[in-house]
């Protein structure tokens, strides 16, 4: 994980935790506040409803009073107090009055409780009103509830009674409004509130007695049965929450108020159910939660963006330093970092730049010194190499001269023999010069698909005869190839030469015989080739210098073999190392990358060229296919 990510993660976590904490706190606090407000609102609404209900009662009482005081009723009372009293012409009066005073029920009764006129049951004139005994005493009271018998049903109403006295016999005016859907619908209620009326009939709860002002509500009334039954059982006001569906917003808080009639036992006539939908509350709660989540989420995203920006700002110099250090580590001592500001990171960058500059200068100096040393070594080696053949040449030429002068008869013989020697030495010189020339002409590797095991096997096969050649101590050869080694991109010729050099080197290190071991190993995206001997071994110094060109520990080496090996390995992007212990033997380890990118690049180059040369294209296609298979 990069420093920037760590920093970002720390920032984000911090912001997330803070935001979540605040949101939770806000939610809890608001929920509690809303709960409280909602309860207060519900209580206020119920109170408002009861006021409204009472107001309707007062309204009914007022209307009945107005009717009792109206001219029509007064005239009727006066007319009926005389004899003979003919009430027939007043038969329709109640209906007319009920219409003009907007009452649903209106009955005019004489002093004996006989119906003179009835708006709700016009045909009942002349019949006694059954409830007259309990009503006659209520002429001063406000409105009350009463069940009214209709033609084939009964209806609940809010009634008031007033008496009109003219002469000895009073006339009673009983008027009321029907407690029905229309009454409930006419109540001035807040939007989320509704009033239902359960008419208390029958033993058990039945939805048919439930009046609901709302139209089209298909909610199962049975859900109210619990509350209704509880009110009937305990005969007191109660509150309950009804879940109409699984949705919390469909919850409704019901206040059930028992409504009693008049009379001795004040029967429970109906239960008023004031429903207050929690939808608004729940939806508000949901909105706040959603808002909190949105704000939190947004905050977190914003915080991450800001953190990433800040982290980037903080870490960019450090990263630059890191990249620069990597460059330096990779050998690019030229890299430097941009310095901005004056903080610690800026100082660090400055120091780094100074350090690389120093290092570069030192390296320059070192290279210069090494170059001088190499030239000296080269000069010494050249001198040494050239001196060896030159000496016999000098001797031979001197021998010839001497022979001419001292023994001319033998001159021919000596001349021929000296010529052969001269030619041999010159050939030797040419060989020395050829080797130097070859080293200077080390070619760039032609990357191809190469089976490393195959290359190793070919080398072993090549040297099999020499290892067991007569005249020298036998060397045993062990091959330990890893079959899982996959083909890599490499120049098989150069690779072959490098391994051959190592084998030659090993043979040279085992003049008295020993064991040569070659092995391959798959190692992640690399292939490791080992060449070990059980020869004389190298000292630590030798190990340190062994790949330097023209350095040799042998009597007759040019010192170029291992330098070539290192050059080949290096050109393949690989690495060579040596492990040795004097007397025990030496192991060279070559690590080669699989060079797939280089291989693909080489293949695509080849493909481009192949458009001109179909044969090459076919070849490249085959190679490409085999690369893809890997």
């Amino acid at each position, binding site marked *: 994980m990069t420093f920037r990510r760590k920093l970002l993660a720390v920032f984000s976590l911090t912001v997330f935790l803070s935001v979540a904490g605040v949101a939770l706190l806000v939610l809890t606090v608001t929920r509690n506040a809303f709960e409280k407000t909602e309860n207060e609102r519900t209580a206020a609404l119920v109170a408002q409803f009861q006021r409204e209900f009472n107001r309707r009662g007062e309204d009914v009482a007022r209307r009945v009073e107005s009717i009792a005081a109206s001219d029509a009723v007064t005239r009727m009372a006066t007319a009926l107090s005389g004899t003979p009293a*003919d*009430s*027939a*012409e007043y*038969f329709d009066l109640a209906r007319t009055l009920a219409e003009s005073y907007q009452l649903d029920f209106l009955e005019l009764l004489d002093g004996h409780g006989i119906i003179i006129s009835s708006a709700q*049951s*016009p*045909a*009942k*004139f*002349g*019949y006694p009103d059954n409830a007259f005994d309990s009503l006659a005493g209520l002429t001063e009271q406000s409105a009350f509830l009463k069940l009214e018998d209709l*033609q*084939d049903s009964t209806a609940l109403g809010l009634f008031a009674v007033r008496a009109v006295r003219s002469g000895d016999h009073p006339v009673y005016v009983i008027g009321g409004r029907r407690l029905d859907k229309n009454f409930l619908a006419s109540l001035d209620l807040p939007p989320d509130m509704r009033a239902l009326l359960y008419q208390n009939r029958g033993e058990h709860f039945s939805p048919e007695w439930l009046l609901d002002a709302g139209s089209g509500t298909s909610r199962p009334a049975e859900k109210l049965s619990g509350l209704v039954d509880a009110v009937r059982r305990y005969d007191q006001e109660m509150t309950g929450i009804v879940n109409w569906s699984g949705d919390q917003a469909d919850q409704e808080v019901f206040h059930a108020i028992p409504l009693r009639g008049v009379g001795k036992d004040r029967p429970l006539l109906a239960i008023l159910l004031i429903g207050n939908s929690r939808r608004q509350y729940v939806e508000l709660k949901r909105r706040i939660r959603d808002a909190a989540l949105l704000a939190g989420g947004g905050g977190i995203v914003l915080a991450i963006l800001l953190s990433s920006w800040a982290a980037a700002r903080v870490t960019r110099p450090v990263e630059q330093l890191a990249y620069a250090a990597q460059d330096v580590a990779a050998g690019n001592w030229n890299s430097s970092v941009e310095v901005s500001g004056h903080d610690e990171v800026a100082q660090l960058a400055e120091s780094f730049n100074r350090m690389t500059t120093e290092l570069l200068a030192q390296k320059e100096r070192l290279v210069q010194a090494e170059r001088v040393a190499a030239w000296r070594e080269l000069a010494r080696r050249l001198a040494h190499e050239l001196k060896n053949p030159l000496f016999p040449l000098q001797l031979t030429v001197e021998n010839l001269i001497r022979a001419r002068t001292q023994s001319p008869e033998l001159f021919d013989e000596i001349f021929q023999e000296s010529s052969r020697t001269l030619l041999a030495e010159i050939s030797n010189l040419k060989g020395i010069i050829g080797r130097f020339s070859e080293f200077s002409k080390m070619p760039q590797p032609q990357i191809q698909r190469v089976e490393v095991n195959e290359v190793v096997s070919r080398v072993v096969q090549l040297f099999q005869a020499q290892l067991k050649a007569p005249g020298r101590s036998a060397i045993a050869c062990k091959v330990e190839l890893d079959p899982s080694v996959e083909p890599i991109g490499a120049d098989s010729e150069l690779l072959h030469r490098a391994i051959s050099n190592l084998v030659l080197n090993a043979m040279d290190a085992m003049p008295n015989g020993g064991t040569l071991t070659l092995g391959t190993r798959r190692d992640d995206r690399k292939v490791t080739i080992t060449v070990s001997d059980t020869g004389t071994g190298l000292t630590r110094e030798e190990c340190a210098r062994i790949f330097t060109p023209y350095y040799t520990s042998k009597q007759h080496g040019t010192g170029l073999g291992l330098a070539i090996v290192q050059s080949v390995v290096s050109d393949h992007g690989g690495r060579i190392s040596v492990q040795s212990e004097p007397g025990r033997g030496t192991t060279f380890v070559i690590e080669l990358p699989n060079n797939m990118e280089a291989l693909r690049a080489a293949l695509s180059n080849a493909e481009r060229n192949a458009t001109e040369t179909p044969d090459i294209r076919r070849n490249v296609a085959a190679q490409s296919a085999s690369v893809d298979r890997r």
Partner: protein
Amino acid sequence: MKHIAWQWLAISSVLIAALAASAETRPQYGGTLHVSMLDAPLSLDPADRATPDSFGRRSLTELIFETLVSVDKSGRATPVLADSWQTRGGRRWQFRIRHNVWFHDGSPLTAESVAASLRFANPAWNVTADRDSVIVESDLAEQNLLADLALSRNAIAKRDSDKLSGTGPFHIVDWQPGKELALGAEENCWRGRPFLDGIEIEMGRGFHDQMTALQLGKADLIEVAPEQTRRVSQQGQVLVSSAPMELLALVFGQDGSSPDEKSLREALGWSVERGSMRDVLLQGTGQATGSILPGWMSGYGFVFPTTADLARARSLRDQTHVSANWKLGYDGSDPMNRLLAERISLNARDAGLSLQPTSGGNADLRLMRIPLASTDPWSALQIALAEIGLPPMESKGHSIEDLYAAETAVLATGRVIPLFHLPVSYASVSNLKNWSLRPDGSWNLGDAWLESARP
């Protein structure tokens, strides 16, 4: 004395001159009369049996068409399109057709056209034309034939494809079945051109709407519900009522199948308090009745009791082993029917009978209003029986006792419980003059005139 008289005369003459009443005793021509009515007949053809009989329909018919004879207030037949008649043996009647009478389409009234019209209206009759006379041979008893011919359904009409032509004082100008009828004065009416130029009749209007229309001056002549007549006359409006000739009765759909059922029906008859219903619901209008024919028509109506006898009703009910659970149907278009039905139901409940009022179609018994068709008791009874759905009565003779026996037999079937006979009442604007009701309860507007109209 003489001096005082002169002074009085002088003062009264000044008073008379100051009065701004404008009226003449001589009829004035012109003006269009606007009439509202409850009925909404779909056909004007007098003989159309699909359209139920009603006072309104009779009125319309008699504006456009005329019958051979009519029946006056005393129940006597008087000539109309027949100017004389005679019978031999009672079943063959010869009517001489009045000359110089034209149908509205301009064709003369002939014996053939009369015969064709009567044949159309009464397929059972044998009607033939003989020169200027029409000979009718029917199974009807002789008295009934004249009364029957006076029925508006036997009015003489000329039926040319869809066009109807009559000989009455008004011809059809525009006819929208069940909605509106516009009539124009017939210049060539044999009785003389009517005074009114035209009559526009609006149909299907409720009583309340009609009264409003009258008060707003949009109608000149309206029908008044029986229960409203007292109030209307108290308000000083011109009110004209016929003799009570609309029967209000409870009619069972089927004969009482068992003695128990008959007893229950009898109990229902005894439970109904006609008196209070008449006094209160009908506001004193009409007559309580126990008979199909009103007393003024039969002369014996008082024999049938009309007072309720709850004790008797209960004892009759207690004798039965079944319980009465009837549905009482009524026509909901008139609110009074509902009130009456509810009251009857209350009364029945007092006698232990269950009667459920319903304005729906399915009922065991119905509260029916039957307009008696004629002032002739035989004819009226016969047609009322047909309305109730009872078979025609068969009577040996035509004495008053035979009539009584026939009616008693009908009542004994238990199919019908007569309740009231109601008059049909109309109110008019005060400047509609000289209109009257015919004995059958229809308007006679042939001689009516509007005072404000100017010739």
